[in-house]
């Protein structure tokens, strides 16, 4: 009994409610005429699309920088990589990995500057990260208009310059990961093996990294910066490293997202993306200063499950589009919940 109580306090009521709610949705789905196999397939797909963004939260949480509201910086790097890949006409797996390879250097450079900045503003990271992210996105909006891209699939036809808002990657790297070893059962169930393998591979790398000397030091910095300092660790360096890794994961994440979704979305599209990732990892049980691989996987699954199931089930049951509102309330509610919980490390 005590153990259950302990579990409840550790995990938190909001998360348990969300979990039960999702469970209820799955049970209710067949009764309101929602195909369960299509839903599950959809959940897997969206899980794969978004898991890397959620994973990108881990290093910064671990190093004590808090939630990465500035993930859009990484996403921008990814967008640069993917547009360059399309510009160079890379296709298939080449296109995908080309985009990733082109994005990573930008992500490292952006992440490095972003990390330096966050080191200067300890204690205010989250608010500043958010606005740095916003400002970065708006700056890139200008850049998308004036950078000299020429590939006709990407450029506005009538003006001859400036990138389109939405660029199809059909014929470049659309679904290259999804289709890799994909398992089709019936008409509606597709298991995107390749994408999930890639996600698992990234998660494994992160798991390994957290076990290296540097990863261990990073966790210690987040857990107790004074202890780490007394053990000869430079907190600033570790924080910068964590920010760079987070940014790189954001960049890779958006390319994975694009190949599954089929489009590159530019301009203001990245503005809102970090919030979904933040909500997901918090739903997964992470706090503002502690996160594990389990939090990532559970969180991404729960959150994406919720996003998939609420519209289909609730809307068919109530004949309204109320799911949007539920989504807003749930995802922001969980962030508020995490922010207002007393945490040990207060700076």
């Amino acid at each position, binding site marked *: 009994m005590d153990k259950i109580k302990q579990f409840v306090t550790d995990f938190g009521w909001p998360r348990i409610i969300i979990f039960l709610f999702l469970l209820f949705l799955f049970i209710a789905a067949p009764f309101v005429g929602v195909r369960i196999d299509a839903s599950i397939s959809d959940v897997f797909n969206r899980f794969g699309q978004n898991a890397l963004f959620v994973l990108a939260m881990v290093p910064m949480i671990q190093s004590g920088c808090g939630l990465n509201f500035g993930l859009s910086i990484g996403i921008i790097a990814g967008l640069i990589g993917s547009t360059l890949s399309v510009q160079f006409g890379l296709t298939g797996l080449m296109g995908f990995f080309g985009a990733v390879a082109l994005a990573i250097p930008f992500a490292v450079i952006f992440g490095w500057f972003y990390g330096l900045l966050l080191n200067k503003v300890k204690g205010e990271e989250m608010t500043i990260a958010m606005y740095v992210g916003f400002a970065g996105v708006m700056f890139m909006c200008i850049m998308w208009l004036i950078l000299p891209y020429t590939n006709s699939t990407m450029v506005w036809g009538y003006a001859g310059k400036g990138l389109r808002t939405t660029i199809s990657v059909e014929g470049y790297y659309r679904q290259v990961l999804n289709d890799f070893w994909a398992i089709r059962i019936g008409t509606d169930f597709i298991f995107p093996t390749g994408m999930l393998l890639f996600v698992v591979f990234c998660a494994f790398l992160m798991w390994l990294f957290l076990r290296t000397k540097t990863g261990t030091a990073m966790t210690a910095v987040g857990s107790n910066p004074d202890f780490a300092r007394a053990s000869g660790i430079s907190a600033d360096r570790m924080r910068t490293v964590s920010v760079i890794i987070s940014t790189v994961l954001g960049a890779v994440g958006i390319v994975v997202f694009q190949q599954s979704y089929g489009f590159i*979305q530019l301009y203001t599209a990245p503005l809102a993306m970090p919030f979904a990732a933040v909500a997901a990892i918090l739903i997964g049980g992470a706090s503002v200063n502690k996160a594990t691989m389990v939090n990532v996987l559970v969180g991404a699954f729960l959150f994406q499950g919720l996003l998939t199931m609420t519209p289909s089930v609730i809307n068919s049951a109530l004949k309204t589009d109320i799911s949007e509102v539920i989504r807003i309330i749930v995802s922001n509610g969980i962030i508020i919940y995490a922010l207002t919980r007393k945490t040990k490390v207060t700076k």
Partner: protein
Amino acid sequence: MKQVIDPKVRTRRLLVRAALIVVFAGLVVLMFNLGKLHTFILDNKNLADGSLTAARGGNLVSIDGREASEIYPGERSMEKVKGQRHTITVTSLSGTDKVVRRISLDLDSEMMLVSLPRLIAGKEPYMEVFVPLNVVTTAEERAGTDNSFTSPEAGGTDPVVIPTP
């Protein structure tokens, strides 16, 4: 710091606060009354039964002393007014006849159809509630914020209009 409040002061404050709540409620009601808009539809048409005909040559109609508008026979005109008590002055364009009527409306009457011939003739009821046949319906719109940040597909809050190709 604990502060012991004099019971006298406390009662006084309670009274003041209660009074303020009353004033607040009163203000709401007052604003409702003063600000309530009504629409007059001034109708200068012959009556269906032919008992009365529209004034020939048209009328000048002024509500609450505002600038008068000309209404010719067979015409309708709309006037928005604030509050419940109004004066309608009808002058024939020839300037011979002048009729002044004071009207008091119910709070919940939105649109009133005023028949000018009846009004001029002083024949009750010269005013009836007007119910529009069909509510203005525009093409169905998708309500709500056009996106939420939780759905990346929707593409983020987009305060900027982006040209489409």
